[in-house]
C-alpha cells in the first residue's frame, strides 16, 4: 500500500466519531460490521453492513433437486439447522400432498425442541460473555454438549445434520433416543436454576439488561422482529401457535410473552422458553407412535407448477420459505425469509441513544446468526 493513498484524517468538532465494530470483533458473533457513530460513549446512530459471507444459497437452490438443497438450508442458521430442514421438507410435502406418518411428526417436533434448547443454551453462553461474565459461556456449552451427543448418536453429526428428508426422515432414530432425552431432561432441570443464580438474579446483570434497547410492539411488528426478540416486546408471533405444524397441536405449551420490551424481557423470554421446551419434550418423548420413518416418496421429486409458502418457528424467529416451481425437479425460485435478516436491521432503531456497552447487550439480546442474514 502506498503512502500517498493514506491521508491525514482530522476529526473536527462537527465530524462524527465513527468506529467500525467488526467484521472481526469479539461480540458481533460472526462477520458482521456495524458502523457505529459515537458521541462520547453514547451511540448516535449505527449502520449494519452485511454480505461478507454471502453464498447465494437461493441461487444454488435453483440448480439442485429438492433432496439436494436440504443440506444447503442447514448452513443458513446453523444453530436451528433442523427447523430449516423441516421448513423445506414441509413445503415439498404440502405441494405433493403427502401425509407423513405420525411417528415422523413426533420425532420432528422433538428434534425441533432439542435444537431450540441447544440454540438457546448457546445464546445464553454468548450473552453472558458479551456482558463480561465469562464463566456462563462454559456452563452453557457444557450442557449443550449433552444435546449434541444425542444428535450425534442418532444422525451421525452434531451441528449440521441434514436428517429430515422430504416425506420423513433419513433413517430411524437410534434405539437409545428416548432414554437419552429423558436423562437429559432430568439433568438439565437441575442445571437451569444454576443459570438463574449465576446471571438472572445478579444485580450487575439486571442493571446492565434492564431498561435498555427498548423496542415497542409497533417497532417489532414494523421491522418484522420475530421469535423471542419479538415476543419480548409482546408481539405474539409464535408460528407454533399461529399455524401449528408437526405435533405442536398435540402438546400443551404456552407462548411466552413479555411486556418489558427491553433486553431483560428478551432474556426472560428465552429463559422461559427453555423451561417450555423441556415440558414439550416431556410430553412427547414417551408418546412417539410406532410406524414408518418415512412416507412413500418417488425417487425424483417434481413439484407441480405453482407457488408455495410455508412458515416455521426457528430458535430465532419466523422462517418463511417461498417456492416457485415450474414443474421441474429443481425449484424455479426459492426464497428464504430468514428471521435474523429482519432482527438485525432493527438495531439502529433500538440501540441509538444508549451507551456502547449497551450496544453489545442489545445485539446479544437479538441473538444474531450472521450466515442466516447473508444466506
Amino acid at each position, binding site marked *: 500500500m502506498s503512502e500517498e493513498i*493514506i491521508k*491525514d484524517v482530522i476529526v473536527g468538532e462537527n465530524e462524527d*466519531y465513527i*468506529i467500525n465494530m467488526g467484521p472481526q*470483533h*469479539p*461480540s458481533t458473533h460472526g462477520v458482521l460490521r456495524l458502523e457505529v457513530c*459515537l458521541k462520547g*460513549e453514547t451511540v448516535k446512530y449505527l449502520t449494519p453492513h452485511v454480505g461478507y459471507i454471502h453464498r447465494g444459497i437461493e441461487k444454488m437452490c435453483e440448480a439442485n433437486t429438492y433432496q439436494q438443497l436440504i443440506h444447503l438450508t442447514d448452513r443458513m442458521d446453523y444453530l436451528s439447522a433442523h427447523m430449516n430442514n423441516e421448513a423445506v421438507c414441509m413445503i415439498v410435502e404440502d405441494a405433493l400432498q403427502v401425509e407423513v406418518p405420525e411417528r415422523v411428526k413426533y420425532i420432528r417436533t422433538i428434534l425441533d425442541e432439542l435444537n431450540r434448547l441447544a440454540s438457546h443454551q448457546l445464546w445464553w453462553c454468548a450473552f*453472558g*460473555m*458479551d*456482558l*463480561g*461474565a*465469562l*464463566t456462563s*459461556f*462454559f*456452563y452453557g456449552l*457444557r450442557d449443550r454438549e449433552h444435546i449434541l451427543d444425542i444428535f450425534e448418536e442418532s444422525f451421525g453429526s452434531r451441528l449440521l445434520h441434514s436428517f429430515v428428508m422430504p416425506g420423513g426422515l433419513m433413517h430411524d432414530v437410534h434405539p437409545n433416543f428416548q432414554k437419552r432425552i429423558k436423562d437429559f431432561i432430568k439433568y438439565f432441570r437441575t442445571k437451569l436454576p444454576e443459570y438463574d443464580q*449465576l*446471571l438472572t438474579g*445478579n444485580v*450487575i*446483570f439486571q*442493571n*446492565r439488561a434492564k431498561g435498555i434497547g427498548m423496542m415497542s410492539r409497533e417497532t417489532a411488528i414494523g421491522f418484522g422482529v420475530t421469535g423471542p426478540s419479538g415476543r419480548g416486546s409482546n408481539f405474539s408471533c409464535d408460528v407454533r401457535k399461529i399455524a401449528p405444524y408437526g405435533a405442536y397441536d398435540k402438546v400443551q405449551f404456552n407462548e411466552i410473552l413479555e411486556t418489558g420490551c427491553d433486553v431483560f424481557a428478551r432474556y426472560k423470554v428465552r429463559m422461559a422458553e427453555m423451561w417450555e421446551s423441556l415440558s414439550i419434550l416431556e410430553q412427547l418423548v414417551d408418546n412417539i407412535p410406532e410406524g414408518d420413518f418415512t412416507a412413500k416418496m418417488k425417487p425424483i421429486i417434481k413439484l407441480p407448477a405453482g407457488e408455495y409458502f410455508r412458515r416455521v418457528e426457528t430458535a430465532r424467529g419466523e422462517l418463511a420459505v417461498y417456492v416457485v416451481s415450474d414443474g421441474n425437479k429443481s425449484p424455479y425460485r426459492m426464497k428464504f425469509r430468514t428471521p435474523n435478516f429482519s432482527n438485525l436491521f432493527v438495531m439502529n432503531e433500538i440501540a441509538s441513544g444508549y*451507551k*456502547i*456497552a*449497551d*450496544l*453489545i447487550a442489545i445485539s446479544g439480546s437479538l441473538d444474531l446468526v450472521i450466515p442466516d442474514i447473508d444466506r
Partner: protein
Amino acid sequence: MSSNIYDFSSLTGSIHSWLSGLMSSGWVIFSEMVLVGLVFLLMYALIGLFLVYLERKVCAIMQNRVGPNRVGKWGLLQTIADLIKLLLKELIPIRKSDALLFNLAPFIVIICSFLAMAALPYAKGLQAIDFNIGVFYVMAVSSLSVVGILLAGWSSNSKYSLIGAMRSGAQIVSYELSVGLSLLAIVVFTGSMQLSTIIESQANGWWIFKGHIPAFISFIIFLIASTAEINRGPFDLAEAESELTAGFHTEYSGIKFAFFFLAEYMNMFIVAALGATVFLGGWMPFHVGNWEGFNLIMDYIPSVVWFFSKTFFLILIIMWFKWTFPRLRIDQLLTLEWKYLLPISLLNIVVIAFIVLMGWHF
C-alpha cells in the same frame, strides 16, 4: 511474643555488616541497592508468571475445565512458554502513532508496580524500605499507572484504545478515593501510616477482627475498590474485550503487551498484599485469645508463609469476582463509587473515629 524465631533482620543485618567490611559506605548502599533490585526483578518475574498460571487454573476449575496441562507437569511451564512466544513476536509499529509515548507507556505502567513493591513488608524484617508514610506511598505509586494507561490509549491512534483509556482515567480517579478512605480506617485505628507499625499493632489480633464491624466494612470496600483500581473484572472496562476488543492495549504486541499484562497481575498482587498487611495482619501469625498451644504452633509457621498465604487468599477472592460477575457499564461504575462506596466509607470513618476516641477498640 515468640514470633521472632524467623526474624530476617539478623540475616539482612549480617549481609550489611559483611558488605561494610568490604567497602566504603557509599559503595555499600550502591551494592545493596543493586542486590535488592535484582531480588525484586526475580521475584517480580516469578510472581507474575505464577499469577498468570494461577488465574488460568482457577478460572478453568471454576468453569469445569482442566486449564493449561500440556507444557510441563500440570502445565506449570505454560506461562514461560507464553512469555517466550511474546518475546519472539514482532513489535508492530503503528502508523500515525506518537512513537515516543507509545513506547514509553508500558514502561511507566511496569515501573509503577515495581515502585510499589519496594515498600511492602514480606516477612519480619524483610522490607526494602520502611517509609513512615508507607500506606500513602503504596497508594500514590500504584495509582500512577493510570498515566501509563492514558498514554497508551492516546498514543496508539486507535479509537478503541482512546475510549478504553478515557474509561480507565475516570475509573481510577474515582476509585482512588474509596481505597484511600478504607485504608484510612486502619490508619485511624493504629495512628500511624508506617506499614511496620501497622503490623506490630496487630500482634494481638488482626484489625479485621479487632476493629468491630466498621473495619470489616472498610475491608469489603477495600476489596471492591481495589479490584476496580487495578482494572480487573467485573471492573475491567478499560479493556472490556467484548466491547473494545482489548481497550487501551489493543495496538500493542509482543513484549510491550506482555508488560501491560504482567503489570496487571502485579498490581493485583500489590493490592492484595496491601490488604493483607493492613487488614489481615501481614506476616503476623493467626492467634486466638488464650490458646497458648495453638498460638505456639502458629508461631512456628514462617512469617513469609503467612504473608504469602494471606495475599494469595485475597488474590483468589479477586479472581473469584472476575470469573463470576458480568462487567459493569461506565455510568454504573461511577454510580457505585459516588453513590454507594464513598458515602458509606465516609460514614465508616466517622464511626471509627468515634470508636477510637472512646477507646472501645481492643
